[in-house]
């Protein structure tokens, strides 16, 4: 596939903390996960059609807030939306996600992660948002004249 143009919008997750509930039996013991500062990004690539590449990664928590180690398998639930209206869109066990979709020019894209240990989910972590700028309009025709 020929790449005719490539632009990147960089979405930098502020190194933050995702609050996560502990494994049973004590769900009040919260664990933390730190989002990686790099290479968290949302990129825009114009491939055969305007396509947006979204990718980001995170560091998994290793212990609960009470200091006890995490023993269960962690699942990361990816949320997407705008602040106040986030919806789960995927659940993965990897430490990064990448997908492609048509660009929505002029939109705001926010993402957050919920950590799940053996089915017990944390609260939604801090959001990372990126604003995709409005697409430029065509330049005016040049050399306009009447003869």
């Amino acid at each position, binding site marked *: 596939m020929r790449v005719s143009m490539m632009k990147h919008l960089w979405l930098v997750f502020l190194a933050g903390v995702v609050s996560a509930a502990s494994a049973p039996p004590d769900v009040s013991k919260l664990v933390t996960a730190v989002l990686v500062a790099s290479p968290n990004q949302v990129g825009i690539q114009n491939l055969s059609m305007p396509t947006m590449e979204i990718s980001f990664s995170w560091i998994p928590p290793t212990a609960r807030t009470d200091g006890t180690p995490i023993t269960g398998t962690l699942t990361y639930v990816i949320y997407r939306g705008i602040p106040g209206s986030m919806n789960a869109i995927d659940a993965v066990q990897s430490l990064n996600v990448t997908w492609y979709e048509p660009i929505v020019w002029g939109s705001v894209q926010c993402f957050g992660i919920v950590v799940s240990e053996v089915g017990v989910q944390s609260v939604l972590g801090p959001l990372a948002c990126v604003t995709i700028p409005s697409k430029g*309009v*065509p*330049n*005016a*025709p040049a*050399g*306009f004249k009447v003869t």
Partner: protein
Amino acid sequence: MTTLTQFTWTDPTTNTDGSPITAGEITGYSIGIRNTAAAGSVIGTYPIVANVSGAAAGSELLTALGTVLAPGSYAAAIQTVGPEVSPFSPEITFTIAAPVPNPPSNFSVA
């Protein structure tokens, strides 16, 4: 005086953000014309609008404007048409001259 017959222009190839224009972005052109002597005539407001179909039109005959321009002074600008329109180009000015009768023929003295 040369009779004006057509507008010509060069189609844009890029957007204002520098990205290339892709298929479907330009579906035609809009030529705006105003009589500069008319009351209230200002740049950017065009009482006469001629739409030109085709992304690579490049020209339009004055006879295809859909209106006959009376003799007078005019300004015109052009913009692209599509899902998003471009800004108007810089204006050009031109004059439509009143027709001048041909001289009488067969003039003779006897």
